[in-house]
């Protein structure tokens, strides 16, 4: 006799399974509408140039389309996976700039921006100013600690989901977060931040 797990009750969305977005424009449409605001805020927490923000938004959605088959629902919600894709896209951009390469983008996001949309992008960038200061403080942590704290503090993933995105155990993640938050708090005080955003101190973290 085998005791079977209860049947899963997947959320019904037009983009389930997720790899549909890489071949069905309507599935992609629904996915895009559900996530475009989250992706633009994710970008705004990291870069301050509106044209670069537009390029990166396009890069992240293209990368999501290209790698949708890599989404594994056991490793957390779609948005956590999408933030992982976003981190890679932004890292790729940083490498491109480091090498001063101006590779031709498949979709040039900045070309699609007009006056009104530019204002909206700039508003989003203003709203995330404090987050970018936090992002800079986090940027000085070792890479593994940094990625984790970014996803938890900056992007609001649960520790369990962030751990899955990065392939570490939840317990390991908690230890790293505890270590990181002291360093970041100190750094924010040094740089003159009068108050440390609550998000720098994940409440789930216990010593």
């Amino acid at each position, binding site marked *: *006799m*085998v*005791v*079977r*797990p*209860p*049947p*899963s009750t997947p959320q019904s969305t037009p983009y389930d*399974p997720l*790899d549909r*977005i*890489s*071949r*069905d*424009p309507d599935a*992609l*449409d*629904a996915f*895009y*509408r*559900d996530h*475009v*605001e989250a992706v633009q805020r994710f970008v705004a927490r990291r870069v301050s140039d509106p044209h670069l923000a*537009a390029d990166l*938004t*396009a890069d992240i*959605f*293209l990368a999501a*389309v*290209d790698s*949708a*088959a890599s989404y*594994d*629902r*056991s*490793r957390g919600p779609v948005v956590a996976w999408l933030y992982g894709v976003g981190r890679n896209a932004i890292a790729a951009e940083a490498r491109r700039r480091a090498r001063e390469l101006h590779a031709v983008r*498949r*979709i040039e*996001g900045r070309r*699609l*921006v*007009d006056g*009104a*949309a*530019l204002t*909206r*992008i700039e508003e989003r960038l203003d709203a995330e100013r404090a987050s970018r200061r936090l992002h800079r403080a986090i940027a000085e942590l070792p890479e593994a600690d940094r990625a984790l704290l970014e996803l938890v503090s900056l992007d609001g993933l649960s520790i369990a989901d962030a751990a*899955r995105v990065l*392939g*570490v*155990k*939840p317990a390991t993640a908690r230890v790293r977060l505890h270590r990181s938050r002291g360093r970041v708090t100190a750094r924010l005080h040094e740089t003159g931040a009068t108050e440390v955003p609550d998000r720098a101190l994940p409440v789930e973290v216990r010593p």
Partner: protein
Amino acid sequence: MNSTLDTFETALLAELRREVAEHPAPAPARRRPLRRRLMLVAAGAVATAAATVVAVGLTGGGPTASPAFAVTSSADGSVSLAVYRLDDRAALEAALGEHGIDATVHFVSTEPGEVPPFEADGPFAEDAPGPQNSCGVDKSPGPALLLRDGGTDGLGANRPKPGDDLGVGGGYGLEFPADSVLFERPVTFYFGSPGSMTLVYPSSRPGEWCGQIQMSTAPREAEVR
């Protein structure tokens, strides 16, 4: 759902739609490699484990017969296995499959202390433990941990107890950590004399193989936490 897109968002959506319409990815059945498919099986099995799901093999008797094995998923994504008797290979393979491990199981006869077959269709990979290890061995002991009695907390009530008639495993169990590569790669288990087993699975480098030997040499301890 965000239905009020601005001009940038609308234009980007149009470009993305055109990209997908012009260069659609092939349907998964034709393109997705085996390894990917196996991972999705794992996904299904683990995603449904809200807290703890137990598969227990009961063969050769009614519901009161003692289990031949126990496979358990924990909420943290790890899977634990204990084998009490060499009984019903197919049920054990199926139970491991439900927990995300694509397993082929062999029961073999070995002398105590003798290592079960350790063979593959190619050379075994040799590289130092670390994040880049092709066998997924970041630190010793690797993607499956041999646990002594009392260490197999994940097994809950199915944990071997002193006095259980334990066959293979000898009171020991295996734990597959949530990040084990065995959730992504097919694995062949050889269970031999009590406490001895080998695992063989493909390396991340094509054509190379990985193996893990699990031997319990110490006598079983009577004490269970």
